[in-house]
């Protein structure tokens, strides 16, 4: 009796162990993801479904959690510091990324997973998420800069939007468009609004002139002649030619700036492609009949035609179960770099894809009612001739903070010279322990 009972127990145990093991093998691998934009989480879940359809033998079960921007990054940093509590995958915004690469890097290199796709993508998009020669994150979009015009304001001043090819053309057109309509001595319509509490207006010009915060060798290159020239160009637009003004509220996402745009007080601005979504989302499509997207003006023939701005890279943390690393890396590359996923970047998220071959896909070449019924992607693609890369490094977040707080404010509002502004920034970085060369 006792023997029988033992045998029975043994059999039950065996069935239990192997049986559960068998069922488990067919079970999907659980992957957790933290995002700060809900749509990013939904996009990744859609990609997981596509993955499961194509890889029925290696299914995954992706769950995501959306946490507020600041809190998500702080929580992630804290979790990585204490070695527990982090998700398998996490979104990290471009300005925050370098913070995570100081000291020990707690992300898994994605080089091998990205390798099969390198020939198909605009590879400089990986630069912001690269440290010590390894790629640690993949973005959701290219974020190429384009010019947004209000054609009604341009036409009223007798300017044909398609006649603007170079920055000289732009300024010349701007002098016609910028007007004091009510005769009180200050213009009521400006050609451009520029940011003084955010980086986009300045960084775009710096990068297109061949400058930037870091160079390809990973050194801080703030005091390069290109950066000085770019900041001078920006300052002159406000104080010499007078065609631009500081955006109301300081940035292009300020509620009162959206009001200015809607009321036809600003004729154009340069922002990354993703700013397109602000026209329906933040301005209720009131500019649908007059807004158009055009390539950035160029500084010189053969120079850079555009650059990239903003972004969010998805990374894999080192707290993932080691047995899941390969699957997670492959899935991440699949979700962000395959042809189908790049079409979805546009159809699901409204972002410009990183793969060049996708730009001729019918899904992208659609007429958009928010932009006068034009096909914006023909113009976006036309601007991708020579994309200026953006390099980042450990002090990229601090540099962004300096630009957002004092540098651009001093340049535009206090009219300090670009040399002075850059020297102050370099001195501040140096006091923080950054190697600023020289």
């Amino acid at each position, binding site marked *: 009796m006792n023997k029988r009972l033992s045998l029975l127990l043994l059999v039950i145990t065996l069935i239990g162990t192997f049986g559960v093991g068998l069922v488990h093998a067919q079970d999907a691998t659980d992957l957790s993801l933290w995002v700060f934009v809900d749509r990013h989480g939904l996009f990744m879940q859609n990609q997981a479904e596509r993955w499961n359809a194509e890889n029925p033998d290696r299914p995954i079960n992706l769950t995501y959690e959306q946490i507020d921007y*600041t809190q998500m*990054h*702080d929580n992630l*940093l804290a979790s990585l*510091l*204490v*070695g527990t509590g982090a998700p398998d995958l996490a979104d990290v915004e471009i300005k*925050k990324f370098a*913070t995570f690469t*100081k*000291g*020990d890097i707690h992300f898994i290199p994605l080089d091998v997973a990205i390798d099969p796709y390198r020939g198909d993508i605009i590879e400089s998009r990986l630069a912001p998420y690269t440290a010590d020669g390894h790629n640690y994150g993949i973005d959701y979009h290219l974020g190429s800069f384009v010019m947004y015009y209000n054609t009604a304001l341009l036409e009223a001043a007798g300017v044909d939007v398609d006649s603007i090819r170079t920055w000289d053309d732009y300024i010349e057109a701007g002098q016609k468009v910028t007007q004091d309509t009510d005769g009180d001595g200050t213009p009521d319509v400006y050609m451009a609004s520029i940011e*003084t*509490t955010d980086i986009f207006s300045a960084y775009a010009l710096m990068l297109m002139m061949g400058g930037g915060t870091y160079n390809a060798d990973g050194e801080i290159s703030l005091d390069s002649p290109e950066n000085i020239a770019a900041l001078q160009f920006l300052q002159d637009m406000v104080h010499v030619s007078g065609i631009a003004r*500081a955006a*109301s*509220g*300081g940035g292009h996402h*300020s*509620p*009162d700036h959206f*009001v200015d745009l809607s009321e036809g007080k600003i004729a154009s601005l340069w922002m990354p492609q993703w700013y397109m979504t602000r026209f329906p989302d933040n301005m209720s499509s009131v500019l649908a009949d007059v807004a158009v997207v055009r390539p950035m003006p160029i500084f010189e023939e053969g120079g850079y035609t555009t650059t990239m701005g903003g972004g969010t890279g998805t990374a894999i943390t080192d707290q993932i179960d080691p047995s899941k690393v390969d699957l997670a890396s492959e899935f991440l590359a699949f979700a962000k770099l395959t042809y189908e996923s790049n079409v979805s970047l546009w159809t699901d998220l409204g972002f410009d894809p990183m793969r060049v071959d996708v730009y001729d896909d019918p899904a992208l070449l659609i007429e958009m009612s928010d932009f006068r019924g034009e096909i914006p992607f023909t113009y976006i693609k036309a601007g991708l001739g020579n994309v200026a890369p953006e390099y980042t490094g450990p002090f990229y*977040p*601090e540099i962004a*903070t300096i630009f*957002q*707080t*004092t540098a651009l*404010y*001093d340049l535009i*509002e*206090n009219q300090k010279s670009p040399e002075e502004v850059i020297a*102050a920034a370099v*001195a*501040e970085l140096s*006091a*923080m*322990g950054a190697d600023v060369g020289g």
Partner: protein
Amino acid sequence: MLSSILRIVHNKKVVPFVFLAPFMTIFLIFKVYPVILAVIMSFQNFQGVQSQEWVGLTNYQNVFNLVRFGQALTNTTVYTIGTLLILIPLPLILAVLLDSGRVAQSTLFRTLIFLPALTSLVVAGTVFRLILAEEGFLNLFLSSTLGIRPLRWLETADLALPSLILIATWRWTGINILYFNSGLVNIPRELYEAAVIDGASPFQMFWRITLPLLRPTTLFVVVLSIIGGYQVFVEPFILYTGGGGPGDGGLSMALLIYRTAFTSFNFGTAAAMGVILAAIIFVFSLIQFRFFGVFSKED
């Protein structure tokens, strides 16, 4: 066994500690321990939990090397003084008025003035951005009443602190009224009656009875305001979406500590700054206590 435990617990000398235990446990874990840890961290190069090394006073040196530290300290001090100048007299006067019985619907007013303390600051931040906008309510009000030209509140460095003080006034007036009110209730009414018989004017009564007898309450509110002022974080964080505002005109010490820790990833220097901030608050509070005669024996 159980009875012996109960006997110990019921011991008059032990009982107080048993009742204090839950509070003390939470206090030690969530208040004392982090403070001690922060002091320790301020002497370490803190990069991840595994790699800490003792670096002596380097972090403190780093603090004084930081370009923004002086600006943050000045901003925070000006902000604190600004809040003191408004948030002591204004609530005091309002509390006396509400207590005088000459205000109709005083309970309604009290509730209305207290409401901001219950409002989500995230919502308040958005609302204040709209109020402070160039074509917002504040400029409209100033130009229609005083004929002042529209100011660019959100885009001018020098207007950042006034904006923040405005938000602080909105947020804290109600709470300070509550404090002053509880102080007023404790003043014996006979004193006023006697003063009326002696022919004292309302102002004399305020100056000679109310103010002196409110001294402990005033001290309490002043100390709280100094601590709150020096710790200001949420107001600029919300109004300028995480930054210090135009030209860092609204950069506070707490905001700089946060930036140093979570943007620059330099927890050691951030902890050192926290210790310095604590020392400043401590010194100011001591001066206050002395000034109000807490240590003297006359009271």
